[in-house]
């Protein structure tokens, strides 16, 4: 395993910030568009989305829109903050980044797929992505907390 220098970590932080900015703003655009799409379904009163029998689909897609938008904002917040806080090792930073991205993809996509072909009180199989995404997101957030805690314990110079 190579020994990382402070400069390497800084470079990685910059790369991660860029990645999460790009992903976060892109996801925000996508999930705001999904919100617009859902508004259209309301506007045109489409039974596929609004009929009482399609309540599960409505719920799933609303959750996809809400979680996607919220998690896009989480990415942007992480991108904005990663240069500002936390004592990061390259592996922890990479893992936190991967897991935040995984959560932001798997959760809304899982909800969306779950609403495609719901069956008698249960969403479609795609919903299985949601607990996986949630687990990864949970670990990602935990890694950020660990880095922040370590940051307060040490006197790592800020860039």
């Amino acid at each position, binding site marked *: *395993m190579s020994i990382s220098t402070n400069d390497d970590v800084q470079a990685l932080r910059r790369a991660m910030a860029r990645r999460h900015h790009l992903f976060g703003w892109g996801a925000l655009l996508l999930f705001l568009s999904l919100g617009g799409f859902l508004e259209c379904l309301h506007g045109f009163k489409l039974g596929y989305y609004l009929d*009482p*029998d399609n*309540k599960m689909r409505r719920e799933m897609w609303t959750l996809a829109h809400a979680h996607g938008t919220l998690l896009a904002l989480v990415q942007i917040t992480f991108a904005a903050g990663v240069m500002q806080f936390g004592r990061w090792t*390259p*592996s922890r930073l*990479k*893992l936190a980044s*991967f897991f935040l991205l*995984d959560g932001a993809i*798997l959760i809304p996509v899982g909800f969306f797929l779950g609403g495609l072909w719901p*069956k*008698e*009180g*249960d969403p479609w*199989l*795609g919903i*299985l*992505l949601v*607990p*996986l995404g949630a*687990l990864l997101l949970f670990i990602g957030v935990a890694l950020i907390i660990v880095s922040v805690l370590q940051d307060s314990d040490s006197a790592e110079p800020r860039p």
Partner: protein
Amino acid sequence: MLHGVGLFLLLLAVVFVLQMRSALGAGRGIALGLLAILAPAGAWCALELTHRNEPPPPEDQTASEPISAQSCFKCHESHYKSWQRTYHRTMTTEAAPENIKADFGNVLHHYQGVTSHMTQEGNRFFLETIDPGWEEHIMRQGLPLDKAGPAPRRKLSVDRIVGSHWFQQLLHRDEKGRYLRLPMVYHIVENRWIHVNGAFLGPSRHYFGQTAIWNETCVFCHNTRPIKNPLITPGQPPGYATEVGELGISCEACHGAGERHVRAHQNPARRLAQHYSGEADLTIVNPAKLPVVRADDICARCHGGTMPRHKEWNKKTYADPYLAGRDLRRFWYLPYSEAEQKLHQDGADVVASPPPPGPLDGRFWGDGTPLTTALEYQGMAMSACYENGHGKMSCLTCHSMHQSDPNHQVKAGMLTNAACYSCHPGYRDKLVQHTHHAADSAGSLCYNCHMPHQVYSLLEVHRSHRISVPRVRDSVSSGKPHACNLCHLDKSLGWTQEHLGKRYGTKPEVLSDDDRKIASSLLHLARNDARSRSIVAGAFGWPPAQEASGRDWPVLLLTRSLEHERYEAVRYLLYRSIRSLHGTAAGDYNYQGTPTERANQIRRLRLRLEGPLQPDQERYPYLPLTATKGPGPPALGFDEMFQRLLKTRNDPDVHINE
């Protein structure tokens, strides 16, 4: 599709391992990645194994815990909501404000010299009338009520309600746990209180005691998973600790015991496996997937006039051992006459040749056709279309419990000829040749001739569920009004026979002079017993019959019938038909009023309605009309004819307790 999902999850796993490798290096990353994948995969496998090891449910699940509809709502919301709209749900309810349709707003009702008082206090409802216990006591002693001294009054709480569609019957819970049916009934259709004498077809009697004990019999058809639980004390009337899974007809009534189903499906792996396996779910009954006989058993349990086959029952609890999916006949008899019912009551288990209905049978016409409701199964089972359940037809062919109007629960499209065309497509192209009626007329609707309104209950006439060819022979021998003459009320049975012979080549029966020459409706109302009279009285209110028979003469017959009618239920139907013919001009008529009150009301009714009538005798050759054109009373012929026929009236006491 499942393979596709599996491949997708595999792809995700590979991406995840690559991420771990990128972050932690090849060795540690891949090892930790694989471990992290194995953890949720292992948890899922454990869930899978749990449900795979479940044994199949036992045939007898009567000991299982009842499941309420609320539990089913969690997964079956749309089914729950469609069930909620039905009258099945509200068959029995607690007497709470949201369930009460009856008017308890300080209402006084006078009948047979007794004033009953209906009131509401907060969320509780009360009926004050003669003490039912006193009436019971006096009756048991065999004393005449008028010599028993002044009747004590009592204010009784109304604790439960039976019905929500036609009537609301009141139940009072006494100290022995008995739910006593009280003598006042709310007739929802007319928004008025009536005494129970008028709610069922039977001779009027002076009685204000309890008229039935809900725990005894009502509990079995009006609730789900009933357990009678009689508490026997020697020398005393039994008390009850009756339990029901749910008041009213709920999910388990049609889907069987649900405890295992609910428990099994709390496991998400089980649910997913069930959704995508395409295999039958053994933990629950789906009537649509049962063999026709077993599916119809579910409906027949309450729509088959069932009687308990006690030898199969637990003698201590009297819990209903039948659950959807089981063989109904193992636990309940399905009698085809009151005589057969009596044999079972007397202890006969198997009746080799069931006796046919007697002349006063209160449940079946003489030809075996059910004449009241709650016997729809027998009607269907006697139909050629049913073929002993080996055919395609079942209750669910025409009815749906979840996709239908709550009123009669008929599937969409089944109130048209499409219902019959599904098995008899040949008639689609030769409808008019077959019916000899205009294609868009009531006479070309299959069920008007083959399922006519020959059934009485609940102050209403209903369609027969015996799908049959209308034969003159059956009407002559049984007193059952002929389908053709329930629409052509102005025509004789002879006229019907002549037309059936010409059109369908049916063999003629020997008919009396009156049957050939006098309108069948007049003969039924003047001569026949109250069962036939109720059906014909109701037929006059049917718009297609009014259209076919003319509206300018029935009041002549209906008012005379009213004058001589001793059954309150028939009086109601006669008056309702007059009202439907003449609207508000019919004025008021209290079919439960005193004889003087009723006589005055009929006199006024005749003055108002009969004067302007000028029915044309040429149009009605089977009616005894004397005035054909011009002014003058047209009713003279009716009076003479009616009086003559009344002398031969067969009017024994009959009872239709539905």
